[in-house]
């Protein structure tokens, strides 16, 4: 079952019930994220959908060395009055990884996220009420040598 398809169909609660009933999903998996966080995630996804292309800097690896620790950072200090920076891992059940609200801090954040597989990752910036976004594909491979 494709997760993205599932995401769309999950809007209809009956589909979730069916999936749970069929043993495809354990209740824990469905409710892993809190309702509030899921709502924030949904809001961020729809905001990103209508966003213009960002002029800020979004740093993320093309190929992640370690899927458990993928560094991502946004430098939106070129924009005035940045009030929020969010990261969305598009293929996750709950795409939102983190949402940072700013009041007095510069429009910059750097963090590390975990990714189980290759996915487009979107950085969403809200500045002066306008939303802009940039998406980078981050490849996750299971490593070999190194060192």
């Amino acid at each position: 079952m494709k997760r993205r398809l599932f995401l769309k169909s999950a809007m209809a609660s009956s589909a979730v019930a069916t999936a749970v009933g069929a043993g495809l999903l354990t209740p824990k998996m469905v409710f892993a994220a809190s309702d509030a966080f899921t709502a924030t995630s949904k809001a961020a996804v729809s905001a990103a959908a209508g966003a213009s292309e960002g002029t800020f800097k979004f740093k993320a690896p093309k190929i992640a060395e370690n899927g458990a620790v993928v560094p991502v950072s946004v430098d939106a200090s070129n924009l005035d009055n940045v009030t929020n920076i969010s990261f969305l891992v598009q293929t996750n059940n709950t795409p939102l990884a983190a949402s940072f609200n700013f009041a007095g801090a510069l429009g910059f954040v750097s963090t590390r996220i975990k990714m189980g597989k290759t996915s487009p990752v979107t950085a969403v910036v809200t500045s002066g009420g306008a939303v802009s976004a940039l998406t980078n594909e981050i490849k996750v491979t299971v490593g070999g040598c190194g060192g």
Partner: protein
Amino acid sequence: MAEQDLLLPSLSKTDNIKERVMRIKIITMAIAAMLSSTVALSAQQSSVVQADIDAYQGYFLERFPNVDGLQGFSKGAYAMNEDKMMQFEAVMEMPPFEDLVEKGGELWEKPFANGNTFSSCFEEEPSLIRAAYPRWNSAKGKVDTLEQALIDCLVSNGEKKWGTGKGKHAWVAAHLTTLGEGTFINVIVPEGDEAALAAYNDGKKHYYAKRGQLNLSCANCHVEGAGMRVRGNTLSPGLGQTTHFPVWRGKWARKTNGVDGFGTIQRRYGGCNKQVRAKPFKRHKSEYDNLEFFHTAMSNGMEITTTEYRE
């Protein structure tokens, strides 16, 4: 794309490269001169060994003109791939190993049952210890490594031996590597010392001999293969591999659920041997000690960069 530029230096750059190699050689010689004048008693480098070092370093400098000079090679595969470098820098912003390096420092200071501490076993002040090893011990007729010296110190003070390769052993070594930041590697194979040259040559042979089922030598991967990709990973250049050990490897950290990713250079040798499907040798015996002697000498003139993260 940037990577291809590195692998296939364009012809128009040739003149620049020669100039660069010359310049870097002069700097290296100057550093070597500086070092030997400060350690007036230390023996002169064997001319055979110096020729090997020049050829080895010259090869890398010529082949990778985009790497930032001799010192740039200490960043390994990261120096050859911007995407990886960015991730390395992100990890090093606040590295996962700080706590264990601190613990290593505490173990270094902690008195043994007899009241002595580790420093009683070393003549050098702590910041100079890392770069003082590996070195030829003419009295014993063998190579001394820092890691072996730590074990010897425990034994001579009546303490229980530690396991080698990782754990406490690696933390203390990592503490000393961190203190050693900015000192220079300067392995000397004394001119005219046949036994020292034999140990060096033994290590050199290990480095260039193909081994294991895959029939690959250290040099196949880390000299000829440097910068090339194997199974999605970039092979690091042999030059500069010893500037930052013990390293914290993501791969080793995952084995301990992120608790301890530290390993010594000889732990890494074992891993490399296994990767070509050869049986690894016992740590801190002549095979790896001599390899460490040769391998480190090849990076003479390079700075110890503190302990670092590696994939």
